[in-house]
């Protein structure tokens, strides 16, 4: 029962449970059914919606697709991680990549590396800050390696809270970028240019706002602000504010306003600043497509250039003024002497206008037909690039002549080549006339001087000759045992004649010295000996007077010195003579010492100190002047007034100096200094002793050619006294005749003689094959002038004695020549001529070229020689004219074979034949010439043979 109850309860529970379960299941089933129904509906709706959505989407997508495909921009999407998820086909066009090549790649792969980082930053910021869109520009690499600039707008696509993707629209902006670049470059360049211009630049826009201004502008106007800070500033009042900077503020302001109003280009206006600067202003209006867009001011400080230009202008004006005032005519010519430019002053000078001159040949137009080649020579210099000046005669337009001095200089081109020349002409016509007049005057003066000289020479001859006789006769009269009174008269006569001779000698000396015809003849002499002789001479002279003559010689002065003892002697005689003249009592001290030595000379100082009347201080200056006598108290001594002047000149021509020191009433001191060389050799013995008759002269034969009877007598007396044989010839012709008859030891030859003068006679004797061809010939001349002396030497004379001469003078000459010429005189006459050729001359002509020399010798012997024998034919016919011509023609051939001696002889023949002066001489000379030529023949032939053999 219990069990049954249990089972009943179990079944009941199970039934309840089953019912419960069935209820639950039913509920569930119903719920399931309902849900199912709902799902079914939902599903249907969904399907419909999906279909609609898909259709719509497809349509939209298609639209978008078309849109995307049709745009020129690259449109792409990238994931937040940066990978391409989409790109439109434009990309291939733009970058060369296909869509499939792009998708899946990371965006950084395409971007130029240095831009990657900045772009990543942009994206990060975008995503981080959820920025809706950004715009960026950057360069990317195309497939073929080029660079394309991209400008892209990126949009952020967001999901609920996360960024799902980035969509970008990218545009190829390379062209714009390139334009921008070049624009920027241009702008930078222009801005840099303007900023760095050495001109102040200010650019304003159409509203007068500053667009650009540079530092130089600020500097020019003293603006302290930096240029970049001025940009944008309004310039409307700038002119007003800065007008005080200008010298004329109101004019400046008015002008600026006018410029701004007109808006026209104005270039390079000068502005004067208040502070003295000069500015150059340029105004440039700026128009863009005919629309005014502002303007540019340009200021440059040209103060320096302005000042420099002003200087140049003034200097040019000055020089032009000078040129015009100086009347210098300028002419430019090219290398062909065509006139390029003629300046006004030249035109005035020459009489042509500039138009008439330019383009013409200067020499053709301006040179007279008779002008020489001075111009051409000087223009040649110009081509070498050197300048020169010369005188030239030009022809004026009116035909008159114009003398100009031209200073010509080359004109150089840019490359330094001579392109022409510039001549500065100075009118010297007047000067030239003056010069000609002067020349004429000088000629007249010269002639007058010559006449004077001739007169002096003649006078001296004319005076000396009789004076010589007077003195000579006086000497002889002393020998005639005169009584006391006669002796006294003779003494006065001698003193007067001596003084007269001194006077004439002084005058002649002065003339000689002034004519520069005194020769200093240096040879060794015994200085101390000369001084002692002089002392002795004066001691004798002043015997009995209360005067002492003292001589003090420096111990170092010994032996021989080289110098002119005769001149020294004359100086000493003059100075000591003077001292003696003016000293009543006391002493004359002659002090000689060696003052100093240099490389060449011993400088000897001579001092002559007296205790005479002295020289007044005021007259000291004129003491050495000509014809000034300071004979204060009518001194008994007469003088020429030339003595000291001559002395001074004689000292000076030897290179010495002379000075004087004097106290009036106490005495005078003359000091002179002369350079002498110390000699190694001894001097020729001098003969100061009077009336010495050397034995070696006894028996000598002398020919005396002298026309003056008094002189004949004087010389005869002396020679007789000295026991010398002599023959007198009263003219030159007779002298020649005598010379041909007999051999003499010496010939004394007067110069001025009738029939044949001494020169001619000497030439004849020397050139005639006579006995006396080598005999010493001594000229007896009244003129001691150097030119006469040299003429005598060239005529073949050996020495000369100036008339009037003291017996001693003649004796020393006789001794010198007869004594030394003994051996020569005794030589046989055949040896008188040596037929040697002039070797020096031949060597100069031919050197080592023996073949040439041989050829010349052969030609001479075969062709030329017969012509010389023709000369005798002309002589026989007395055809002097042809003799002269033929001689002239043959003359040059002689030197070619070394017959230089013969050449000088034929010159004489030619000269005499031309003058037809002396027929006899000519006959003799030609005969001698031909004979001598014969004498040369063997030598010439031998020489030719030698030359041929070599």
């Amino acid at each position, binding site marked *: 029962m219990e069990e049954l109850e*249990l089972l009943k*309860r179990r079944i009941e*529970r199970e039934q309840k*449970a*089953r019912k419960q*379960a069935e209820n639950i299941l039913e509920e569930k089933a119903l719920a399931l059914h309902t849900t199912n129904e709902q799902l079914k509906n939902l599903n249907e709706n969904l399907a419909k919606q999906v279909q609609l959505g898909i259709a719509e989407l497809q349509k939209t997508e298609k639209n978008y697709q078309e849109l995307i495909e049709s745009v020129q921009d690259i449109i792409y999407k990238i994931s937040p991680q940066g990978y391409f998820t989409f790109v439109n086909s434009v990309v291939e066009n733009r970058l060369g990549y296909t869509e499939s090549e792009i998708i899946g790649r990371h965006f950084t792969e395409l971007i130029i590396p240095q831009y990657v980082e900045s772009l990543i930053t942009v994206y990060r910021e975008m995503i981080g800050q959820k920025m809706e869109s950004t715009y960026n520009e950057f360069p990317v690499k195309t497939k073929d390696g080029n660079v394309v600039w991209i400008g892209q707008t990126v949009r952020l696509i967001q999901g609920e809270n996360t960024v799902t993707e980035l969509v970008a629209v990218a545009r190829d902006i390379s062209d714009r970028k390139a334009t921008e670049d070049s624009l920027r470059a241009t702008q930078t360049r222009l801005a840099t240019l303007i900023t760095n211009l050495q001109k102040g630049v200010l650019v304003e826009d159409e509203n007068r706002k500053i667009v650009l201004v540079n530092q130089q502008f600020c500097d020019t106007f003293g603006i302290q602000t930096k240029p970049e800070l001025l940009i944008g500033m309004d310039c409307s009042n700038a002119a007003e504010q800065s007008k005080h900077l200008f010298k004329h503020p109101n004019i400046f302001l008015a002008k600026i306003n006018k410029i701004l109003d007109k808006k026209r280009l104005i270039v390079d206006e000068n502005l004067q600043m208040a502070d003295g600067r000069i500015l150059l202003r340029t105004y440039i209006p700026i128009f863009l497509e005919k629309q005014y867009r502002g303007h540019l001011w340009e200021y440059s400080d040209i103060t320096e250039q302005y000042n420099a230009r002003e200087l140049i202008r003034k200097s040019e004006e000055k020089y032009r003024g000078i040129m015009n005032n100086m009347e210098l005519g300028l002419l430019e010519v090219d290398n062909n002497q065509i006139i390029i430019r003629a300046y006004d002053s030249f035109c005035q000078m020459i009489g042509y206008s500039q138009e008439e001159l330019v383009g013409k040949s200067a020499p053709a137009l301006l040179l007279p037909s008779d002008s020489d080649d001075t111009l051409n020579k000087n223009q040649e210099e110009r081509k070498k690039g050197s300048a020169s000046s010369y005188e030239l005669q030009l022809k004026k337009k009116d035909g008159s002549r114009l003398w100009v001095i031209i200073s010509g200089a080359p004109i150089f081109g840019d490359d330094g080549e001579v392109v022409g020349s510039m001549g500065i002409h100075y009118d010297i016509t007047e000067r030239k006339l003056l010069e000609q007049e002067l020349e004429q005057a000088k000629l007249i003066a010269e002639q007058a001087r010559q006449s004077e000289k001739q007169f002096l020479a003649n006078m001296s001859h004319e005076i000396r000759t009789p004076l010589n006789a007077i003195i000579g006769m006086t000497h002889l009269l002393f020998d005639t045992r005169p009584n006391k009174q006669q002796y006294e008269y003779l003494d006065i006569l001698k003193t007067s004649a001596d003084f007269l001779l001194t006077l004439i000698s002084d005058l002649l000396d002065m003339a000689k010295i002034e004519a520069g015809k005194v020769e200093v003849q240096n040879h060794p002499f015994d200085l101390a000996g000369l001084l002692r002789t002089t002392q002795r001479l004066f001691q004798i002279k002043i015997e009995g007077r209360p005067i002492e003559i003292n001589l003090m010689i420096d111990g170092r002065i010994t032996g021989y010195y080289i110098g002119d003892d005769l001149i020294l002697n004359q100086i000493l005689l003059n100075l000591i003579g003077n001292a003696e003249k003016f000293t009543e009592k006391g002493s004359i001290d002659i002090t000689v010492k060696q003052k100093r030595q240099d490389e060449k000379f011993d400088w000897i100082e001579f001092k002559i100190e007296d205790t005479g009347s002295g020289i007044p201080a005021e007259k000291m200056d004129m003491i050495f002047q000509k014809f000034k006598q300071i004979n204060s108290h009518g001194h008994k001594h007469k003088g020429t007034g030339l003595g000291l002047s001559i002395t001074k000149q004689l000292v000076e021509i030897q290179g010495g100096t002379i000075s004087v020191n004097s106290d009036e009433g106490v005495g005078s001191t003359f000091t002179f200094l002369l350079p002498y060389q110390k000699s190694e050799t001894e001097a020729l013995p001098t003969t100061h002793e009077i009336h010495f008759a050397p034995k070696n002269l006894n028996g000598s034969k002398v020919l005396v050619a002298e026309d003056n009877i008094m002189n004949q007598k004087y010389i005869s007396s002396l020679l007789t006294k000295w026991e010398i044989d002599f023959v007198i010839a009263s003219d030159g012709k007779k002298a020649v005749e005598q010379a041909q008859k007999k051999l003499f030891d010496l010939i004394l030859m007067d110069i001025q003689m009738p029939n044949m003068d001494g020169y001619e006679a000497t030439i004849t004797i020397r050139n005639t094959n006579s006995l006396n061809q080598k005999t010493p010939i001594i000229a007896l001349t009244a003129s001691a002038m150097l030119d006469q002396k040299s003429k005598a030497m060239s005529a073949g004379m050996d020495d000369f004695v100036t008339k009037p001469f003291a017996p001693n003078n003649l004796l020393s000459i006789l001794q010198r020549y007869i004594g030394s010429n003994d051996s020569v005189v005794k030589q046989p006459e055949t040896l008188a001529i040596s037929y040697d050729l002039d070797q020096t001359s031949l060597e100069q002509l031919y050197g080592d070229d023996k073949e040439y020399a041989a050829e010349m010798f052969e030609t001479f012997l075969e062709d030329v020689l017969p012509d010389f024998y023709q000369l005798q034919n002309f002589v026989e016919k007395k055809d002097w004219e042809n003799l002269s011509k033929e001689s002239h023609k043959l003359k040059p051939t002689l030197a070619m074979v070394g017959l230089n001696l013969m050449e000088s002889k034929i010159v004489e023949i030619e000269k005499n034949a031309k003058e037809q002066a002396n027929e006899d001489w000519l006959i003799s000379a030609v005969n001698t010439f031909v004979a001598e030529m014969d004498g040369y023949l063997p030598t010439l032939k031998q020489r030719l043979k030698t030359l041929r053999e070599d």
Partner: protein
Amino acid sequence: MKGIVFTEFLEMVEEKFGYTMVDNLLSTTELPSEGVYTSVGTYQHTEMVSLVINLAKQTNIPINELLKVFGGYLFKTFTKTYSHFMAKAPDAFTFLASIHNYIHVEVQKLYPDAELPHFDIERPDDKTLVMTYSSARKMADLAFGLIEGCVEYYKENVEISQIPINEDGSITKFVIIKK
């Protein structure tokens, strides 16, 4: 609590003590459902607690023992009904580790009103699995039985230690170490 737990509990009681015990329990325990249970229904878990307490009183077997035994019985039932869960896991650790993240997720989908315990899984090393149980139902003993059943099913030799973390037993740590 799902009806299946009640039906399976009553089946185990009938199997072990006979239907008399079942009837006794149902008759003497105050039950709002009046002891009528179907596996598809849902009942208050307090009924289960009352039943277990009553059974322990009737049989003098401690409650925790009863629950452990029931756990093992319940797992066996699951292996028949929900074998596809077991098929997916090759061993006990894998299965146990997947309970919370997989099985409970699926259970929740089927029974949105189900109140499931929470398990935290730790794997200190290859041989050790630590499961921390937390549930307001405080049925850690049932969980122990289920774990035993699972290990038994996979025939694995393990040692299971049960460490209560708090006093009321709502949080309990199970350390399972492979031997």
